[in-house]
């Protein structure tokens, strides 16, 4: 039964769906009593659509970036056509919005960074599972944290940042907080005491603007589409340069950490399996079915989806646990945790 997008028709449709479900449940009871229910019902391919009227997907971001808005429309339109039910995108301006939406079951699927998935995993465990991540042309399935300073800064390395101000992105950001802090600790630097001051910018774009305006001496950002050796082709610096908001020549990368397992497409596992398989297959087919559309949704040419499960994010899940344990260990000394 096809769902009507909105209005009275939808309400009637849902009411009818409930009636049919009651009837179908009764029918199944009859089958079971008659001893015919051993193999279960022979479900038709679109049975899941009687349970799911629309597919809700959470994405992080805002509507300030016209390119991002366009990408989401392309993404939504493709999925709607492929799934045969309306796909509704729920945008959250911060990481926590996506995390809570999928953890609470308000949405069915979400695009989320590893750190966000680690948070979801801690909340609901196997009720949510990663389906896909991207494999880049050179075979890598990760991205990087980068420490960026202004081009005219005297800072040439992470060591030069001692006592200076640093901007993180968000407490739930993998590349903008979780991973670089763990990498610093591995290098013998305690991030809670090493820097003079630390703050959260809220998002990558805001972090770049704060750096440009001198609010930080350096900021942590995400970069992808390459390696420290090949340079990067994607990330907030590149995006903002394309928009004409900044000039790449005004910034320098002085430190990198990674690779970090790339963003996952995750799904609620309590949704119908045929829907989950369909979502995974439709998205994975996209770069092969329509290679011109693939970059339109913000993916790098030459990349493609690959199937993943929880194991792919084990390192991030452990890092998050360590970070939480560290924070619970007591307030930081000079410099302190971000305010």
């Amino acid at each position: 039964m096809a769902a009507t997008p909105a209005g009275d028709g939808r309400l009637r449709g849902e009411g009818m769906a409930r009636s049919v479900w009651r009837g179908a449940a009764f029918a199944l009871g009859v089958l079971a009593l008659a001893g015919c229910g051993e193999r279960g019902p022979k479900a038709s391919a679109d049975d899941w659509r009687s349970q799911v009227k629309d597919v809700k997907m959470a994405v992080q971001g805002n509507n300030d970036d016209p390119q991002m808005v366009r990408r989401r429309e392309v993404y939504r339109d493709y999925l709607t056509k492929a799934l045969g039910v309306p796909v509704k995108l729920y945008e959250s301006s911060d990481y926590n919005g996506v995390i809570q939406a999928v953890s609470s079951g308000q949405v069915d699927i979400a695009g989320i960074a590893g750190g966000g998935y680690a948070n979801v995993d801690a909340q609901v465990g196997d009720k949510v599972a990663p389906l896909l991540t991207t494999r880049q042309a050179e075979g890598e399935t990760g991205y990087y944290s980068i420490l960026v300073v202004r081009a005219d800064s005297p800072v040439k390395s992470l060591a030069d940042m001692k006592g200076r101000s640093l901007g993180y992105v968000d407490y739930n950001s993998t590349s903008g907080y979780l991973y670089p802090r763990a990498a610093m600790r591995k290098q013998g630097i305690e991030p809670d005491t090493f820097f003079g001051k630390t703050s959260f910018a809220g998002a990558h774009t805001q972090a770049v603007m704060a750096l440009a305006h001198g609010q930080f001496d350096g900021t942590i950002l995400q970069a992808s589409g390459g390696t420290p050796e090949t340079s990067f082709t994607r990330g907030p610096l590149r995006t903002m340069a394309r928009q004409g908001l900044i000039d790449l020549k005004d910034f320098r990368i002085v430190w990198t950490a990674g690779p970090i397992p790339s963003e996952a497409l995750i799904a609620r596992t309590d949704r119908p399996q045929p829907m989950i398989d369909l979502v995974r297959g439709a998205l994975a087919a996209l770069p092969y079915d329509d290679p011109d559309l693939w970059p339109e949704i913000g993916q790098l040419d030459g990349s493609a989806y690959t199937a993943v499960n929880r194991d792919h994010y084990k390192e991030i899940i452990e890092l998050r646990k360590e970070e939480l344990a560290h924070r619970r260990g007591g307030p930081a000394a000079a410099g302190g945790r971000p305010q």
Partner: protein
Amino acid sequence: MRALLIAAAALGLVAAAPAPPLRIAAIGPAAAACAAVGGGAPAGEKAYYDHLAKRLQREVLKCPFASRAEAATALAAGKVDMAWLDPATFAPVQAQTRAILTVRATNTSNRIPVYVAVRGADPARDLAALKGRLIAFGGASPAGHATPRAVLAERGLGAGAYREKVEVDGDAALAELRKGAVDAVAVHAAAWQRVCRMVSPKDPEPCRDLRVLVKARPEAAEAIVIRRDMPDELRFRLIGIHMPLHLEAPAAFAYAAARPGAAEFQPAEAEALTLADLK
């Protein structure tokens, strides 16, 4: 009473619309009728058929054929729904069938698109015109060198038919082309995009001075092939079930992939078993 009527209708629907079985061609000593895989089948084979049946909510049958060519003919005729084919057996049935899945081997990249390009002023209009000329590659990695070489070789430009220069990366290869130090580049799609994608509104077409001769993925050696009239929903579900098979059902994957060093299933474009250029 209303509930009884609805129940009856539901029963009717259930009985009237069983999903048709999925029939998979398998190469064996001799052709035989399609049949369910029994308990005596090897564990991996049984696991694969059971996994597909459970996830597709329909019966999955094994249909033995003596050769891939026979399986291809049966696929095109609608007697089976899925078969492993290679370029030779795919060619005669290309109009009725399409590839959907290939197997990626361990430690190899995806079947990434490759660009072969020359300067806009160069008279070359096809690969044949590059014979004996100097081609720059964007790195020594498999994606930077081996894959572009494979794409050239498949199109008649084997090693030895051209001179080559392996640069550090795609940026360097394209810079050499622009300087006139080489005649052409063969780089993977990400390297091309790194240089040729818009990075500033002031320069929306950074590579308008170059001409692309070929944009293509390497030809697949083998692929799972279906009929073109299979509904997209079933095609997508088959892809969505096969892709995580190595994670969810390793024994089933070992049987289904059955290629040395197989790492995972990956989707494929319809013409993966041909030398077709990408649009």
